[in-house]
């Protein structure tokens, strides 16, 4: 039923910050339900602003956002989104288990305990379940961040540079889990600076710069569009335009 609508639709999205910075301007984007969608662009391109706008973490200047056909600020739409932010933003007072339980509670889950145990096991945090977030290693925090985003079984998972600063083994492990999630029908929106990662994982990629959409296609289409043999070269060309 919810697949009748795009997972995410942005129409004329504009965000101007209080200091006058125009982070997004008249931005239109539609991501189909079930897609694995990549958002690529340099620092300051507007990726995190776009994600924050979708997740109700900033006040948009103009435009409309809908999630599976529902206004993004409705309770229904919020319940469908899972967000793993770029920066580690775990509650310093909560243990691993409590982080997941409380997140589940905020999302209205009636019995979050079983789901929390499932994710603690799946992300290899069993021996750290009663450890508070500040005492976890960087990799463990990153895993917990992802587990928290998935806790309430979201239909749209938004991953903002989830593998930044993560070692090779953990990156492979995280992608294995995300691929499995996508195979089960979850829509994934990913931002990353690792172009090969985007190329391997994403069905479609959008290149954005200075708050504008430059191009959007699958990896092959982008290479053809820019007349180059590698996605890296397409990216460099797009950003130089």
């Amino acid at each position, binding site marked *: 039923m919810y697949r009748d609508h795009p997972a995410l639709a942005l129409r004329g999205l504009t965000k101007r910050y209080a200091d006058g910075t125009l982070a997004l301007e008249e931005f239109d984007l539609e991501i189909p339900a079930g897609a694995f969608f990549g958002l690529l662009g340099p620092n300051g391109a507007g990726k995190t602003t776009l994600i924050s706008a979708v997740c109700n973490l900033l006040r948009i200047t103009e435009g409309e956002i809908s999630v599976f056909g529902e206004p993004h600020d409705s309770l229904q739409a*919020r319940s469908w989104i899972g967000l793993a932010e770029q920066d580690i933003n775990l*509650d310093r007072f909560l243990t691993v288990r409590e982080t997941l339980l*409380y997140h589940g509670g*905020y999302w209205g889950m009636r019995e979050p305990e079983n789901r929390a145990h499932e994710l603690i096991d799946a992300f290899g945090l069993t021996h750290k379940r009663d450890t508070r977030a500040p005492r976890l290693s960087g990799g463990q925090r990153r895993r917990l961040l992802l587990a928290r985003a998935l806790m309430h079984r979201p239909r749209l998972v938004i991953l903002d540079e989830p593998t930044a600063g993560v070692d090779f083994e953990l990156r492979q492990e995280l992608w294995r889990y995300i691929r499995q999630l996508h195979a089960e029908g979850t829509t994934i929106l990913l931002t990353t600076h690792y172009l090969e990662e985007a190329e391997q994982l994403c069905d479609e990629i959008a290149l954005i710069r200075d708050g504008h959409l430059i191009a959007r296609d699958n990896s092959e289409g982008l290479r053809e569009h820019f007349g180059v043999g590698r996605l890296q070269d397409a990216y460099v060309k797009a950003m130089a335009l």
Partner: protein
Amino acid sequence: MTPLVWLCKRETLRVSKLWTQTVLAPVVSSMLFILVFGLSLGGRIKQVGDVDYEVFIVPGLITMAMAQAAFANNASTIFQARFDRYVNDVLSAPMRSWQMTLGYTVGGVVRALAIGVSLLVLAFVVVGVPVEHPFALAAAMGLGLVLFASLGLVVGIYAETWDHTSFIQNIVILPLTFVGGVFYSVDVLPSPWEELSHFNPVFYLVNAVRYGFLGESDVSIWLSLGVIAALAVPVYAWSEWLFSTGRRLKD
């Protein structure tokens, strides 16, 4: 209602995990006030009205401890959540703004009540303080805690550094509390200090609580409750407005 219950639980859990800082420390410092001021000065001042001095100061000290705790708790919990950005987990949740406001307010109220009840028990044992009008006491405390817990939220949301929250606590709330009649009846003050005391909102809170405990007050209980309510309602509405609009919480 589930998200609200979980947010209330989270805020209460924070208070309980930090209980030595959040509850024990204010109880110990307030008891020191009662022992040092009450029992030492009490030997010289004897009575205020018909009440022994060590009993007279108890309602004001309990009010001071609870009001400061409600403010400090909420200012620090929301500022910390903003600073570390884990407030985003609440702001992006399918939760209504009134649930966020109420959930955060509850933390400060619970902490203040834990302190108040502990002090009441200890003060009863040490100086035998009575509770003459429990309903008036409950009303005064309820309104006072909503006022200071909400004020803490507002300050914690506007604050840009930790210093901002402690500035309001040390430069505004603490002095107003001290000159609000905690240690004396304003009747004994010379003009114009007695009249000026009536412009201090904490004066009304201290007197409403004192009426609840001792049955005595410098002003009418209804005037006191009215003044506290007239402040609590707009400050609570202000904190709710911040959550509903996202101002200062969302860029």
